[in-house]
């Protein structure tokens, strides 16, 4: 691809076609995620929306952020961060779910009304 150009010796140059392809996919998925909210899927809606966001995010990370061609270690680094966030959110969710029953309903004396 970059054979015709004076590309750098130590990094990968992403072809324009790939960039445009990913761009198209992102645009399409954005419109899709917008459209899907007009269909009532019940509790599934949020997971569909998050699933689409995950696909979009993966595309951005792999192509726009060069993860596909870079050292795999960067992907490991990113995944470890996500794992960390997952642990944090997971435990906070698990715990707060457990003690909901102890809460005084709608306690918010600082809020008038």
């Amino acid at each position, binding site marked *: 691809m*970059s054979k015709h*150009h*004076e*590309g*750098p*010796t*130590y*990094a990968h*140059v*992403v072809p*324009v076609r790939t*960039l*445009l392809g*990913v*761009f198209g996919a*992102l*645009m399409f998925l*954005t*419109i899709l*995620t*917008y459209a899907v*909210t*007009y269909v*009532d*899927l*019940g509790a599934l*809606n*949020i997971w569909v*929306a*998050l699933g*689409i*966001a995950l696909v*979009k*995010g993966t595309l*951005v*990370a792999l192509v*726009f*952020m060069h993860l596909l061609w*870079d050292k795999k*270690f*960067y992907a490991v*680094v*990113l995944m*470890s*961060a*996500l794992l*960390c*966030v997952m642990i*944090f*959110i997971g435990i*906070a*969710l698990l715990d*707060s*779910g457990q003690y*909901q029953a102890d809460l005084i309903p*709608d306690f*918010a004396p*600082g*809020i*008038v009304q």
Partner: protein
Amino acid sequence: MSTPHEGRDEHAHPHLQHHFESMAQQYDSGKFGMWLFLVTEVLLFGGLFCAYAVYRANHPEIFAYAHQFLDKTLGGLNTLVLIVSSLTMAMAVRCAQLGQQRRLKQMLAATLLCACIFLGVKGVEYEHKWKHGLLWGTHYVPQGETVAPADAAGAATTAETTAAAAAAPADGGTTLPHAATGPQGLADHSQPGHGGASHGGHGPAGPAPRNVHLFFGIYFVMTGLHGIHVLAGMIAIVWLLRRSAAGEFGPEYFAPVDFVGLYWHLVDLIWIFLFPLLYLIH
């Protein structure tokens, strides 16, 4: 004092720092550092996503009710704008790698423009919330008076960013059915107990649950912090524009463009998740 320079060629690149042996080592170090920085950004927002998840899971009714006051279409538009900017940023990196000086500047400028549009639209949204008292904590005082969409559009034309002003009113026109939802929801709220009204095909909202202000607290912190990141990215892009005007970047030295690019894509990536979580709640 003789400092050994083994492994370094005599014609070292002017941007090669003394403690590195090659541009490749320098680039790798910088890139690795950048990735680690992005990790910290992911975790920074991770904390906010955690707060979001905890409140969403335990008080779904607040989210189901309050998200109707957000303008899906403006949010969607902003998502598209950011994706365009990500493309132009990726193109800018490519241009820098190939030494295409003119296109590099064009692409950076395009990215900057997209960032301006994004913030402009954001400003319109914020102003709308402000006017209607849809704010955080004790400042959450929803105004009962219905506000015609034309008002919002009129206010938007006074926005400073011309691009935003151009985009927003046009958009305001297309969002009529949705824009109607907001005020109607507000009217609902002002008369608790009067539930069951339909909202532009969204299904009934019912009476306002308690502590709706929590949603707006989370909304403003998340989008606000994201907005600050966009601003920081814009400053970095201006810095890149200045350096690229001096023709500093080329196949041997494009690291700054690459690193700012990584940052910019991450900011885009975070918005990709914020958009459905805040705007597209069913």
